[in-house]
């Protein structure tokens, strides 16, 4: 395994720009304001992100993108996670990557320029079976004249109401097919908002119920397996980035309390029973960040990218889960309340572990790759 982190100038620029943007736009009271809104995000901020070209970063220039790579996307996801600035950024990036990897040219040239300009898209792959393996699909597609008829149920369809397109997996004649469907064609009653542990996020259950989709929506059948694999790794890279950024914020939040709260006449941060686990969380976070930037750097490299990404997600899950768990505990009685931000961080960590595999899942995969 090589142990390299390369940085690109564009990546460092993105890191700086994203940090100051997210810090300014997303103070914690704004985050909390969005917990109860229908879409879960501020549409003006989302529009600004589109105007800044953040959705276009890893889209090829021929489709209206900037032509960089996920190396430059990772720092944006990290800062969004750090400031809990929730938008359809991740779901849209994943959907765009799916199209780049597996879409027919006609789909790519129709949709990618619109995504580059800031329109949202998402994917519908998870099913009620709760399996992390994206190949475990029960939704069915059957031919219906020139079209296809879909039947089945999808879960954790993120930001579906905000999206113009949704990429749905279904079994077609014994193998998995992917359809990129216009959300306008889906009846509203087929969509139910799910109650998620992370209240900053919006996920939906999608019941296909005989949904008719045209054959032009079909992604390249030859590329489905590679595309699902790519989606899985992209989602984990972004998930790891969000977790790593969130972990940093969570530790900062805890440290601030340990530096101001007094008991027994002393600042509680001077007690080693609190100080040492906080340092352990910080050590885990630093490892997480190193693994994240290595994964971002080597993402496109055959084999190496997969190992680096799984390591990054496994470590990020471990780091933020521990940091947020201790954050609740170290805030004492306040930590047990809804008002304490520790719960937001803990819920975020639970949610990000729940999507595309937690630490143990990835370590199992790594064992098969490395041992």
């Amino acid at each position, binding site marked *: 395994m090589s142990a390299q982190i390369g940085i690109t100038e564009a990546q*460092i620029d993105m*890191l700086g720009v994203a940090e100051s943007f997210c810090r300014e736009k997303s103070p914690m009271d704004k985050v909390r304001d969005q917990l109860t809104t229908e879409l879960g995000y501020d549409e003006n901020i989302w529009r600004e992100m589109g105007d800044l070209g953040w959705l276009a970063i890893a889209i090829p220039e021929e489709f209206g993108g900037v032509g960089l790579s996920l190396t430059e996307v990772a720092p944006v996801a990290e800062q969004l996670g750090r400031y809990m600035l929730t938008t359809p950024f991740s779901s849209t990036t994943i959907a765009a990557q799916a199209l780049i990897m597996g879409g027919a040219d006609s789909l790519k040239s129709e949709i990618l320029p619109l995504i580059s300009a800031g329109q949202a898209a998402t994917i519908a792959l998870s099913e009620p079976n709760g399996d992390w393996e994206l190949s475990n699909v029960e939704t069915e597609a059957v031919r219906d004249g020139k079209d296809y008829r879909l039947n089945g149920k999808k879960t954790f369809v993120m930001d579906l109401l905000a999206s113009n397109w949704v990429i749905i997996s279904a079994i077609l004649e014994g193998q998995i097919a992917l359809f990129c469907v216009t959300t306008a064609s889906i009846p509203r009653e087929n969509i139910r908002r799910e109650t998620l542990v992370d209240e900053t996020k919006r996920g939906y259950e999608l019941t296909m119920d005989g949904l008719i989709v045209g054959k032009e929506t079909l992604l390249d059948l030859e590329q489905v397996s590679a595309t699902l694999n790519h989606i899985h790794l992209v989602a984990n890279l972004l998930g790891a980035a969000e977790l790593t950024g969130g972990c940093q914020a969570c530790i900062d939040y805890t440290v601030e309390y*340990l530096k101001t709260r007094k008991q027994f006449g002393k600042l509680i*941060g001077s*007690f080693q029973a609190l100080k040492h686990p906080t340092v352990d969380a*910080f050590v885990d976070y630093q*490892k997480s*960040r190193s693994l994240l930037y*290595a994964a971002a750097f080597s993402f496109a490299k055959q084999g190496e990218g997969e190992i680096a990404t799984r390591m990054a997600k496994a470590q990020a899950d471990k780091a933020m889960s521990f940091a947020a768990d201790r954050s609740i505990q170290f805030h004492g009685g306040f930590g047990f309340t809804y008002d304490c931000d520790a719960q937001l961080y803990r819920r975020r960590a639970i949610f990000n572990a729940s999507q595309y595999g937690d630490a143990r899942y990835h370590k199992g995969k790594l064992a098969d790759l*490395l041992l």
Partner: protein
Amino acid sequence: MSAEVKEFAKDAEGWFAEHTPADPDFMLPLTFMEVGTDQQFEFLRDWQRKVYEAGYLGAAWPKVYGGGGLTQAHQDAATAAMRKHNAPIMFNTIGLGWAGPLILDIGTEAHKKKYIKGILNAEDVWCQGFSEPEHGSDLGNAQLKAVRDGDEYVLNGSKIWTTHGHYAKYMILLARTNQDAPNKYAGLSFFLSPMTVEGIETVKIRKLTGEHGFTQTFFTDARIPADGLMGKEGHGWKIAMQTLMYERNAKGGQAGGYSITEVNPLEILELARKAKRGGKPVLDDPVIREQLVDFMIDAQAFKLNGARAKLPPLNQDCPQAIPLMSKLIMTEYMREINQFALSLQGTKSGYYVGEENAIDDGYWHRGYLNAFSATIGGGTSQIQRNIIGEHALSLPKTR
């Protein structure tokens, strides 16, 4: 890497391929703290001299004092070549890694001329006199007394855990020159002290492994030259802290090479492949597999931390974090992976060094027990957590 460094790296690579010695018929120390027999000492001293003479140690130190006069990139390439060929350690660590850089940074011209070359060619072995029997983690409370008398200081007291105490010609010494200072730190001074004067006596300490490795050092009216004082009287604490920064690899300037043989998770993999439970390889056990992957992630993260520490844009939030934590991470990793290696050995984990049926001659047992030298020495892991908490996270002081 510049073309010149590439060329140097290639030469180093060739040199270590040709000259790295085969394992002798006795066990070599895995760390500089484990030099316990004359045989081991002679072997490592010869090896260090050879590496220095070939130009692969101290390559970045100034030529005028005995260094190679090249760049850190040259030395890093040489160190990488050593590692690649699994060469024995550079054992004169306290000179190469701590005293040497300190002397080059703040020593007088005379100090540099007198000490640097002997550190590099292993002619002069160095030891460190910081801890005392009653003052370990509370180093600032050190009590060994140094009283000025003309051109000399007279030393009385005792130091402990003196690695290489038995072989050393010089010691970096923390001593109390002022009993009435306003606080405990202000009374301390820092000396480059000879070990070969009358009144300094070393007594070997037997370690938990049963081997020898360091001494207790007694000072009874020992007279040392006053020109060994570093900085001024009362500056001892600050200089000791600077020395610890080199020791914990939180500050650069070391001569190069490595002083601890790293455990490669792949070696453990070999163990797990051979060990059987119910006739099946332990490597098939999902719990063992997960633990192995944990170690691989940790090893990779440690290396990547090193790579990231060299990229300032990725460290802006807390530039000193990675350097401050590397000692804690590495030493705890070594302890844990050695312990894990024992757990793979079934009944054979009950053997010890010297037993003919022991796996790898008891290498892992010795490694595990010796690993505590690093989690305790140089500031315990618990003290490291205080330091990281207070310096990197600005948490309130514990003391």
